[in-house]
């Protein structure tokens, strides 16, 4: 019995630690794939310490964790003392309030706070950037407070109330008696509360994800946005170091506790010598000072006098200096030393739109696609550009000017253009099957097909395949598309956006529709991958263009940035990395030859003619499509949905009310008889 239990426990511990072992092993891997150990190296650690951005993110996480823990600990401890001396009824009510963030799912806490901040900041105060460092700090303090309170309260309850009386009896004022006596008694609770708050805060992803703006991002939120490629192993190196640090801290804490226990069992307490006591005091003060100074230094470094330009771009849609490319952002910052670029990413036009329309962000430059530009113009979300500040606009090839999405070309400057086709793995996919869009519906490859996880591209493919106009507003046609997509659903392994990279490169999926430039990048990493545009069907031809959203704060700097990107040399260097077509005259001369000549990037004219661009869709159609797509995603067929959405709200409301009543009833305290 005991032995089986021991073996079982060991197995569970192995289960708990295997993934961590995988990550630690990954940090010594020369390759980037966690599942494939290619060779041993310490390079990832070197890279980690060279990566200022990553260390900066870690610094952000630490800063938030330290500040929120310190505030919550001080605030919470005093509050706990206050709550403790409240009348029992009041105390119970306050403890219920305290338990709300503990029992509420993180996602609800995060959403509710972000809605509050946006509601107050943007809605009531007219702030542009209502989600920022301070909102993140407030959120962290809010979810840290209960940890402190719940750890301190039991210690207060255990404490002999006579101790405080005794201190007052011996001449202490209430405040003094708190510092001379109470604090010593509740210290273990305060410390464990603080430690818990610190770790929760450092590792928090969900709440931060919802309340963070663009200017201040913590490490977990950033890690979440690394979806395109397998995560760079230097992050595993960071994980390993953090693991060691926390491990050492925990061991040290336990040792200290053990020593304390031992000392307690000894009869004679050694009187701490005066020197020792002074040393302890100095050490404590020094620690606090270092923490505070460090925090302020961190704040200071994040708040320089420079202009901060917030650029928001598609994931991995700018050359970043890796693989011998030019680091465009660094080049820009070099050219304009007073501008500091803060770069953020999004995975789809819809995500960008949501971020901007939810509010709470400051973004100066965005690079949406054609149809989204049209939608944003119609909703007044873009600012007209001052072309005097963009002299390089003359470099833009005429074909890409005055497009349908921006007929007078007032709001946008083209960044890239490209096509949407199918990328497949020749090792597994029969060439004979590679003809048109129907490859994505081929039963043979069930479970190996990936599909777009955004409504516009997904419906676009169905529309091209069924031969409808891609900008149709005919609901019957859209219904037919939805049915086609619903039919495809069982074959699809996963609906993805940038995760397509890892999936395809590591051959965990075989077929996926995606953007040509990204396909090119994937093909560089896996030679079995091929890209094609359907032979006789239409396909999407898109232009991504740079715009300035109405929430921008640094319009002039933004225009400088746009101008910079229109330089042929820069554009060419950029295309070396992102592998799309450049709309800039002469850019091809600065590109690597194999790219400039690639048919994936620059398909022949006769094929390009079949390309169709997305145009503007009215809002009700957009929402209609979005809901249809969501229905497909959650596995509802189109017909069912039609019935549902025309139904009355009454049953739902009644059910909800019933559930609410049940909840309230259950939450009421049990009536106890003494």
């Amino acid at each position, binding site marked *: 019995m005991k032995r089986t239990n021991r073996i079982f426990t060991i197995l569970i511990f192995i289960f708990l630690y295997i993934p961590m072992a995988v990550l630690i092993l990954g940090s010594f891997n020369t390759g980037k794939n966690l599942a494939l150990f290619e060779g041993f190296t310490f390079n990832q650690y070197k890279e980690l310490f060279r990566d200022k951005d990553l260390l900066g993110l870690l610094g952000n996480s630490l800063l938030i964790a330290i500040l929120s823990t310190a505030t919550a600990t001080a605030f919470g401890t005093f509050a706990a003392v206050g709550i403790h001396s409240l009348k029992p009824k009041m105390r119970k009510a306050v403890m219920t309030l305290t338990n709300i963030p503990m029992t509420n799912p993180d996602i609800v806490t995060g959403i509710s706070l972000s809605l509050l901040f946006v509601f107050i900041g943007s809605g009531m105060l007219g702030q542009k950037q209502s989600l920022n460092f301070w909102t993140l700090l407030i959120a962290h303090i809010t979810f840290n407070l209960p940890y402190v309170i719940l750890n301190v309260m039991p210690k207060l309850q255990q404490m002999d109330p006579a101790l405080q009386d005794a201190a*007052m009896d011996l*001449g202490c004022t209430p405040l003094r008696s708190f510092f001379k006596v109470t604090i010593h008694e509740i210290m273990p609770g305060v410390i464990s509360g603080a430690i818990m708050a610190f770790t929760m805060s450092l590792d928090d992803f969900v709440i931060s994800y919802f309340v963070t703006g663009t200017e201040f991002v913590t490490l977990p939120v950033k890690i979440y946005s690394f979806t395109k490629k397998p995560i760079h192993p230097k992050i595993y190196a960071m994980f390993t170091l953090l693991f060691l640090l926390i491990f050492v801290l925990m061991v040290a804490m336990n040792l200290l506790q053990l020593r304390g226990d031992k000392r307690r069992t000894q009869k004679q307490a050694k009187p701490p010598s005066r020197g020792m006591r002074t040393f302890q005091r100095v050490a404590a003060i020094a620690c606090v000072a270092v923490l505070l100074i460090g925090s302020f230094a961190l704040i200071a470094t994040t708040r320089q006098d420079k202009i901060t330009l917030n650029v928001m771009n598609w994931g991995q849609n700018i050359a970043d200096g890796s693989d011998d490319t030019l680091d465009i952002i660094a080049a820009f910052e070099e050219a304009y030393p007073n501008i500091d670029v803060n770069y953020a990413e999004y995975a789809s036009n819809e995500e960008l739109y949501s971020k901007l329309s939810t509010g709470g962000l400051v973004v100066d430059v965005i690079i949406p696609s054609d149809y989204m530009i049209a939608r944003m113009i119609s909703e007044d979300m873009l600012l007209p550009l001052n072309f005097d500040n963009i002299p390089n606009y003359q470099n833009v090839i005429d074909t890409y000017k005055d497009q349908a999405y921006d007929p007078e070309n007032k709001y946008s400057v083209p960044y890239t253009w490209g096509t949407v086709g199918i990328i497949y793995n020749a090792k597994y996919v029969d060439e004979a099957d590679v003809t048109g869009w129907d490859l994505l519906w081929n039963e043979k490859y069930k479970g190996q097909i990936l599909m777009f996880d955004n409504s516009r591209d997904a419906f676009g493919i169905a529309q091209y395949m069924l031969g409808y106009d891609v900008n149709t507003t005919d609901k019957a046609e859209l219904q037919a598309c939805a049915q086609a997509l619903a039919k495809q659903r069982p074959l699809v392994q996963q609906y993805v956006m940038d995760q397509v990279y890892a999936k395809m490169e590591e051959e965990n999926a075989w077929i996926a529709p995606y953007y040509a430039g990204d396909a090119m990048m994937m093909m560089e990493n896996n030679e079995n991958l091929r890209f094609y545009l359907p032979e006789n069907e239409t396909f999407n031809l898109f232009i991504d263009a740079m715009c300035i959203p109405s929430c921008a704060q640094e319009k002039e700097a933004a225009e400088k940035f746009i101008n910079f990107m229109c330089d042929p040399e820069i554009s060419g260097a950029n295309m070396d990395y992102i592998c799309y077509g450049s709309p800039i005259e002469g850019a091809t001369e600065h590109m690597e030859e194999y790219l400039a000549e690639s048919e994936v990037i620059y398909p022949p004219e006769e094929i390009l003619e079949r390309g169709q661009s997305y145009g503007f869709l009215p809002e009700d159609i957009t929402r209609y499509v979005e809901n249809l797509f969501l229905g497909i995603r959650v596995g509802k067929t189109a017909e069912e949905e039609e019935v549902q959405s025309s139904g009355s709200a009454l049953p739902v409301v009644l059910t909800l009310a019933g559930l609410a009543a049940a909840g309230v009833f259950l939450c009421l305290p049990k009536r106890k008889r003494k």
Partner: protein
Amino acid sequence: MSKELIRLQDLTMEFDGERILDGINLYFNDHEFLTLLGPSGCGKTTTLRIIGGFLTPTSGRVLFDGKCINDVPPYQRQINTVFQRYALFPHLDVFGNIAFGLNVAKLPKAEIAQRVSEILEVVGLQGFEHRRIDSLSGGQQQRVAIARALVNRPKVLLLDEPLAALDLRLRKDMQNELKRIQQAMGITFIYVTHDQEEALSMSDTVVVMDKGRIQQIGKPEDIYNEPKNAFVADFIGESNILDGVMLEDYKVKFFGRTFKCLDAGFAPNEPVDVVIRPEDIDFVPPEEGHLTGTVTSVTFKGLNYDIIVDFKGFKWLIQTTDHQPEGATVGIRLNPEDIHVMRKSEYSGMFGDYSSYSAEYDELTEDAADEEE
């Protein structure tokens, strides 16, 4: 006696509408050892906490040296307290605990050290300066608590059941010790206890309390010999309490017989309670006795026997060294000095009947007084 130090005027205390103290009037003299005695819940600890300044009375005044100190917080009163479970600071050693008050008062280090070592000598704990609190025995902790209070040289020391947590032997030793310290320091001790023996043996004055009211104030002997009502009679020692009628001065009638007694000042034919202490009763042969009864139970108690005797259905407790077998018929004689007559009170008829006697009766009263407030 010496001069008056503290006076309580019409003290009333209510918690959540419940009356804990009900019009307490009391004064304390300088150098006096005064004990507040009563069962748990009688209000004695509340009274002490009001004097200490931890509670503010609902109405009434506390005068110290003639000045009202109702609004003076505890840390400004020249009064120190020894708490029920000592309330020693676990994060400090013996020295740290005793020096606490002096440190707060910011006395020079040398003086603190000197006063601490002096007081350690008084309580007999020399050399214990740097012992941890949790390594001390109960008695030692007790001494530290007393030293911690006394080292501040208060005018009054409040002691809240300081010996309740000690075992019997240690308690006896500490009683003597406390009395000695009180006399050596020459300050006022206000002592709270539910243990009547403790109260009687240590105090100059005993105040018996119940239900938030003072039942009797007096010297220990007076309280024992002349209880004012059935409650006091029963709470202090064992008593057989009978219904009687005071026919005239020095004549009381009960059990259908008239007895001589030493009490006077009652109205003619006033109904009264008659107290007869169990140890004052002597057995005589049945034919010589004023009363005759049957022995129903005999318990050996070491010094004496507890014998329950049934007199016409009313059971008396008799403590005697004179053994009587169960079932024997015995007679008793009552001398005038054995009979104490009290006025009728709300307590009449509640005490003094041993019909439901069990051998553990004295333990019942002893254990009942853990927590008050």
